[in-house]
């Protein structure tokens, strides 16, 4: 997995609440069997008209936001479907961090599997960062220090330690768990005796 240490760049403001994963990447793009190539379809219905032409005033279609690495969005970002295509499309577009007041659980998890940092801030801080983003002020996100800097604002954020380490080191989660293979096998042996119906072959 890609590492995440720090990030500097313009942030795109998207002041809409409850942005769901259908909005982030609509269904017609879930037919792929690859993880890559979804960036052009990110926010498809807000970005393109019925004929597939760019909608000029949508923020990610305007300069300099078309180069954004950061997204600042309204409450409850990423709600709805579990599709990991949502973080895949964000990442393929170039977004490596999303800032909001809250994230849906499954989307939040999926971000960390893909080297994307979702950051939770207070409503007041979100307002400040939204304004800074609109004013095209450069953001700096420092994961080791857990700080977002934008103009005069310096905002600390919380992150669970294991998630932070995984991003900083770009760890392979499955590889780590396979180190506990013996424990998994022992668990299964124990349950085969205690709950045999769970191991019945059909």
């Amino acid at each position, binding site marked *: 997995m890609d590492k995440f240490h720090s990030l500097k760049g313009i942030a795109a403001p998207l*002041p*809409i*609440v*409850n942005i*769901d994963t*259908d*909005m982030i990447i*609509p*269904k*017609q793009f*879930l*037919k792929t*069997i*690859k*993880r890559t190539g979804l960036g052009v379809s990110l926010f498809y*219905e807000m970005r393109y008209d*019925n004929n597939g032409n760019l909608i000029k005033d949508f923020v990610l279609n305007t300069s300099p936001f078309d180069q954004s690495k950061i997204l600042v969005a*309204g*409450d*409850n970002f990423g*709600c*709805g*479907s*579990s*599709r*990991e295509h949502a*973080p895949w499309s964000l990442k393929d577009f170039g977004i490596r961090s999303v800032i909001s007041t*809250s*994230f*849906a*659980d*499954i989307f939040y*998890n*999926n971000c960390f*599997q*893909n080297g994307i940092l979702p950051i939770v801030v207070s409503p007041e801080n979100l307002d400040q960062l939204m304004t800074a983003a609109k004013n095209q002020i450069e953001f700096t996100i420092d994961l080791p220090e857990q700080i977002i800097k934008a103009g005069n604002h310096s905002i600390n954020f919380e992150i*669970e*330690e*294991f998630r932070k*380490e*995984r991003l900083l080191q770009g760890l392979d*989660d*499955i590889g*780590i*768990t*396979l180190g*506990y*293979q013996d*424990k*998994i096998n022992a*668990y*299964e042996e124990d*349950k085969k005796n205690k*709950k*045999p*119906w*769970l191991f*019945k*072959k*059909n």
Partner: protein
Amino acid sequence: MSNQGPKTLFDKIWSEHLVGQREDGTNLLYIDRHLVHEVTSPQAFEGLKLSNRPVHRPEATIAVADHNVPTINRQNIEDPQSKIQVETLAKNTKEHGIQYFDLMDQRQGIVHIIGPEQGITQPGMTIVCGDSHTSTHGAFGALAFGIGTSEVEHVLATQTIVQNPAKNMRISVNGELPFGVNSKDLILYIIGKIGTAGGTGHVIEYAGSSIMGLSMEGRMTICNMSIEAGARAGLISPDQTTFSYIKGRPYAPGTEHWDQAVEYWSSLPSDNDANYDHEIVIDSSEIDPMVTWGTSPEDVVSVKGTVPNPSSAKTENKKKSIERSLEYMGLKPGTKITDIKLDKIFIGSCTNGRIEDLRKVASIVKDKKIASHVQAMIVPGSGLVKKQAEEEGIDIILKDAGFEWREAGCSMCLGMNPDQLKPGERCASTSNRNFEGRQGRGGRTHLMSPELAAASAITGNISDIRDFT
């Protein structure tokens, strides 16, 4: 969470599945059953291949194609991409020795319908699937939640998931349900009350006499939409209704283990004095048949109500959100819900595509005709639901009324197959999401119960089942 003291249903399942703690402080949770479909699994199987990892326990996984499949002309999937995805699932499951119900198998259907139908879903289990509506299986007292594709790969490779415990929330609904009010109204009402982020970080346990009085089908509808309230999982205590439903199904415990299983299942309900991080109590007499007016499942109102006015919003954000929804939905504030004219009716999905739902619809539309301006389709949740309905003559009643009778699949709940709304079309839908573009670009979705959708099909407007004769 302590090991001593009273425990919730969630606490019990959690501690029973804890394999251990990793050095990074995270917990490894054992997964009893893994359900796989064609859309969120190809990249996971590809990942296994690239790192040359086997599937740890192939017999714990069951696969089915549901999202992409056509509901007419099953032999040939016209969309080349959908076709590749379905073929890829067949190939991957064969390669790894995973049970796969193919499109011609009568057991094929929506993954969350067939799990319970086959007896795969059982109390006390941990169940995951790369699909957010995995919460459905919580109706059996199983801890079941949706995961992303990277986690699907993790479960395939290790039969575990990296997880930290959720918080406990209990929503109790008490009293006899008023006439015309059923499980769909109940869950829409709950979502309207706590909001789409109300359950974030929590597992919601549904309790109280209204909930425990529901059939398994009704309980599944409730747990199914837990994710629309932000909770990854919903739970309902297993009881005699649960055990009776499971007994004798193909994957259920056989006679040699039945008593032992029931004894264990009976130990699962939350202890009387268990602690919840959050408690909500609802009197069911306050609930009406419910309909969504906007583009989030929390945008819900009584069928007797009106489209809200943005100026009544408590915050500026909420006001903007209502304005955006109304513009998308093509609705004016103050419009009576029952004055909203429909173009399409969709009955089906993992929320309301079970035999009980089809029976209700049939009883309402029997000897009637759908309104001349609406197109109505009914998509059974599985091949076996379809077969049973046909044996009961339900298909004839529905077709006589003007409904299209389709093959099983997710269909227009998300419109990945050809069943979609056209821009501006308005649909009464028994599915779970009314997001912008969900049922087709520009499509307008009103979520409601099968009873309301059936009544609305006949009148052509959103209708209150209580006024319907």
